[in-house]
């Protein structure tokens, strides 16, 4: 069983991607960051209600992982899923409209921030009961194998799901039945306000892979190339051998658990947050690209402008989309004939 502790292996072994790919990775991370910043603004204006969990700081995980997937591969996530959904290729306009609770949202405004789904990109949600989507991911892996397909499913979850029974049931079933499921744990160190040290007897989450005989690795989740490298190897192995994988991405969220926890400062220190910002995945990757001479400052500014325009468009689209009609309360409870 592979169980190497991989930290920034890709970056130490040269760049590994060309200028075009580097630009794409940077743009996608910027797109997520900008989407989240605008969502936070809209929340403050009362245009988005309920819970809003921002992904700011964790962008390298979704972007690095999705960059090595095929369009027909599946992804599934929990409630901090805007980044995963965007990375998988969803239209930011329809996502923002969903957050606004409008009829042109991905789920017709019925799902909201925590329940983004997109059949056109094989993005399977958007699940907000911690741990519950892990068995569902195993079921998708089961279906892939049942049909003799060679897709994989990437299942994103947080460190908060690890103490749940469903994490362990899922790891066991996927390993027992040799299913093409890549469990990608985004360890941002806090389940809401509970640190991993206060939640887990085994804080090195990747080591649970050994327990279940699942190849497992840990990766620097703030390094998009390292994530890309580790997920790429896991995907290749999973596709070929139909075995699951467990990857623990060491990451950090800069914002609170949700917008109702704006500072996130009760359970962690300001100094810690500031220290973690020194390894901001976007800043690091930007610097790396510039140092390597892959892109110029002007190229990057253009990418930033382009992303900013796309998100402004998304907000305008969401603003313009009408509320769902009253009769939609009763549609989609059961499959419409």
């Amino acid at each position, binding site marked *: 069983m592979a169980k190497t502790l991989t930290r920034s292996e890709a970056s130490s072994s040269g760049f590994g991607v060309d200028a075009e790919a580097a630009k794409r990775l940077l743009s996608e991370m910027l797109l997520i960051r900008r989407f989240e910043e605008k969502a936070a603004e809209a929340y403050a204006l009362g245009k988005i209600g309920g819970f809003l969990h921002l992904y700011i700081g964790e962008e390298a995980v979704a972007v690095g992982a999705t960059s090595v997937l095929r369009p027909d591969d*599946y992804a599934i996530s929990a409630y901090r899923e805007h980044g995963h959904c965007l990375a998988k290729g969803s239209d930011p306009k329809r996502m923002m409209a969903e957050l606004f609770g409008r009829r042109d*949202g*991905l*789920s*017709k*405004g*019925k*799902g909201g921030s925590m*329940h983004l*789904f*997109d*059949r056109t990109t094989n993005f*399977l*949600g*958007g*699940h907000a*009961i911690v741990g*519950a*989507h*892990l*068995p*569902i*991911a*195993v*079921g*998708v*892996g*089961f*279906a*892939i194998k*049942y049909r003799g397909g060679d897709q994989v499913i990437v299942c994103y979850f947080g460190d908060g799901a690890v103490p749940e*029974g*469903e994490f362990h*049931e*899922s790891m*066991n*079933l996927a390993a*027992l039945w040799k299913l093409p499921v890549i469990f990608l744990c985004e360890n941002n160190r806090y389940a809401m306000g509970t640190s991993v040290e206060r939640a887990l007897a085994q804080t090195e989450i990747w080591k649970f892979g050994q327990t279940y005989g699942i190849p497992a690795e840990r990766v620097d989740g703030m390094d998009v190339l390292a994530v890309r490298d580790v997920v790429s190897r896991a995907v290749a192995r999973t596709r070929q051998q139909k075995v699951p994988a467990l990857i623990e991405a060491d990451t950090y969220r800069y914002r609170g658990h949700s917008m109702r926890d704006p500072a996130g400062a009760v359970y962690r220190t300001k100094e810690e947050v500031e220290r973690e910002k020194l390894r901001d995945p976007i800043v690091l990757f930007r610097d790396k690209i510039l140092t390597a001479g892959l892109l110029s400052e002007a190229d990057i500014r253009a990418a930033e402008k382009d992303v900013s325009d796309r998100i402004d468009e998304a907000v305008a689209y969401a603003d313009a989309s009408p509320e769902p009609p009253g009769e939609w309360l009763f*549609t*989609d*409870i*059961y*499959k*419409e004939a």
Partner: protein
Amino acid sequence: MAVMTYREALNMALREEMRRDPNVFVIGEEVGLYEGAYKVTQGLLKEFGPQRIVDTPIAESGFTGVGIGAAMVGLRPVVEMMTFNFALLALDQIVNSAAKINYMSGGQFNVPIVIRGPGGPAAQLAAQHSQSMETYFYHVPGLKVVRPTTPADAKGLLKSSIRDDNPVIFIEAETLYNVKGEVPEDPDFLIPLGQAIVRREGTDVTVIAYMGMMYRAMEAAEELEKEGISVELVDPRTLRPMDTETIIKSVRKTHRVVVVEAGAGFAGMGSEIAASVTEQAFDDLDAPVERVTGANAPMPYARNLEKLKTPSKDRIVAAIRRVCNANGS
């Protein structure tokens, strides 16, 4: 038509649907090698192999979630709960995932899953293994809930459930597996979900019951016939969606209603039916709706106490007499 047991009728339904549609598979504890804790899946492993008859470890939440995930991408799982008491371990998957994914996704992902197994009072299995579980499920929009009383219904309703594009909770009964009845052998024999049936025509009182309580109510009806009380028996068969139309039609004919249910009565099916009848046919009633329900207590083990817990024929007879005399008729 062939005479077979309820168990054999279920087995036949599974076999026919698996032959008809390669996307149908069975998953659960002891469904394969052991051939089912109650032998409903007998012989299926031999015919369909381990890819389609999938034995699981004891992990109800896990394997129910597996079914839901597989259903989201187009398979048609039949998840067996060894008994429905164990479905509580998967209640989150059923209520928060299976029932809501179609709605939360704005209709993008439906979940065509059947979750089936025995439930309801059994013989001296005590508090954790002998309870009516349907109440936990029929409250939830997005689920359909089926309780088949006869072997023919078991077959026709299970086949419809498997072909349905939505999550269906299909609760059988340990006490009915050996009941025999005529069952159509036609592989296209289906009973639509959401359709009640009048099991016995009568003119004086409508008795609504299902599963074991229907058989007990039938005995009560036969006894009362000798006294000149004509009982109409309605079996809802599907509890959600409920065919209130058939119930109300019967009430408008008889003007008296008794609902019998095995579960503890509080917030039970009897309450729901009584409310519907009151809302829709109050002026047709000649007497208040009576409920005969299980005692408001957990299921005890001791044989005498167990008998007290579940509605007896005598209690059903007494309730029918009460409503029939209520108006002095």
